[in-house]
């Protein structure tokens, strides 16, 4: 959403006319956007004045009594008790104000941190959800890639309907500086790049990559390439896997 589109939500927000989800998203945005906060403040003032347009009506005289009677049963929250030394009350108020001010600032900073970390978590979870959906999709195909030499191995799962590939790699040391690994799909003997990747220091990776639409392939393979990847493989693949298609 562009900034401009966010600002457009200020008017319905000030009127309380956003649907629940939209409101929640806008409030998250408000935490970070002073422009929208100012716009909301200004439009809220407008909204509040709309009360004045209610058709005039005279409340029954007894209502005043009722308001006062109900109030007399409770004291305002934190109201000062009469009879205490005024300076003590003042000092207590000052301390309270300082404390509240500090607590407020801390609370606010905490809230902002929470909002940011929630957003980050949401992205991570969305990525995971997508990955799991690919793994579990009914049309998923898989290929186990065995090492042509020694230790490393990989498993590739793809979903033609979701146009996604999930690759899991084990025991493959990270590519040297300036180099990267590249995953290929071999379609009718021709390599098509799926994406580049690198492993973590423990030699592992689980990642999702896009799969070209309608790509049919017989083999998947991994090569090591210069950083950024190559249009065509520059070496013989060291991991190769034959496709075992889904039923």
């Amino acid at each position: 959403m562009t900034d401009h589109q966010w600002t457009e939500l200020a008017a319905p927000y000030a009127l309380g006319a956003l649907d629940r989800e939209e409101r929640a998203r806008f409030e998250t945005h408000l935490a970070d956007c002073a422009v929208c906060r100012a716009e909301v403040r200004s439009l809220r003032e407008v909204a509040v004045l709309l009360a004045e347009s209610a058709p005039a009506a005279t409340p029954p005289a007894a209502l005043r009594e009722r308001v006062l009677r109900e109030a007399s049963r409770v004291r305002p929250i934190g109201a000062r008790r009469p009879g205490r030394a005024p300076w003590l009350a003042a000092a207590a108020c000052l301390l309270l104000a300082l404390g509240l001010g500090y607590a407020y600032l801390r609370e606010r900073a905490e809230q902002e941190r929470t909002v940011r970390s929630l957003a980050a978590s949401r992205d991570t979870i969305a990525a995971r959800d997508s990955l799991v959906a690919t793994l579990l999709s009914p049309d998923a195909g898989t290929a186990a890639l065995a090492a042509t030499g020694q230790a490393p191995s990989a498993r590739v799962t793809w979903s033609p309907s979701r146009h996604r590939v999930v690759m899991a790699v084990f025991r493959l040391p990270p590519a040297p500086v300036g180099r990267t690994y590249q995953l290929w799909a071999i379609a009718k003997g021709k390599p098509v790049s799926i994406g580049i990747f690198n492993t973590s220091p423990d030699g592992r990776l689980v990642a999702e990559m896009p799969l070209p639409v309608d790509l049919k392939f017989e083999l998947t393979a991994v090569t090591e390439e210069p950083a950024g990847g190559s249009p065509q493989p520059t070496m013989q693949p060291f991991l190769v896997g034959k496709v075992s298609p889904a039923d």
Partner: protein
Amino acid sequence: MRKNRTDANFEAVPDDQQVKAGVPDRALVERMAAGEERALGALYDRHGRMAYALALAIVREGADAEEVVADAFGQVWRSATQYDAGRGSVAGWLATITRTRALDLVRARGRRTRAVERAAQADPDGLATPLGTPADRADRQIERHEAQHLVTRSLAELTEPQRRVIELAYFGGLSQSEIAAELQEPLGTVKTRMRAAMEKLRGSLAPLLVGGSS
């Protein structure tokens, strides 16, 4: 509707010293925060009528409106120590609390509000029928009435569809998509109207707005 408004019997505001004395609302709230019940009485004398009219416009039944007003003033009384002048006027604070309580009550009862009812009737006269001129009033709160008059006039200056959208949101408590369904209009149209209407209102109500110049 219109009959109600023009024939309303405007009683004189109770002759409370605090009303006359011109003590600012904010000072009354401070005294309430100190537990002074007379200050609450004074606040009621100033704004009780507005709160009642607002509540009645939303809940429709006099008895329900009284309950809403008593609740709202109760909340204002209990939370007087938390009132933050930086966030708006006392009247605005009270109006917000009253509206929220009224809409809660309407929802709890599963009842439609007056604004929604009127929209359903597609009243060609429009929803915001002018309240009458300040001269009609036997009321001393001239400033309040000027505000009322300006708000009413500003609403009257909106196009009929714009006004309807605003009233359904404010008095009906409907969301944009609920308004679209109620009026059987495309959601995009409702959104555009609401924004345009608020923009127009902000312009015409500028004399009453303190901080919001943008």
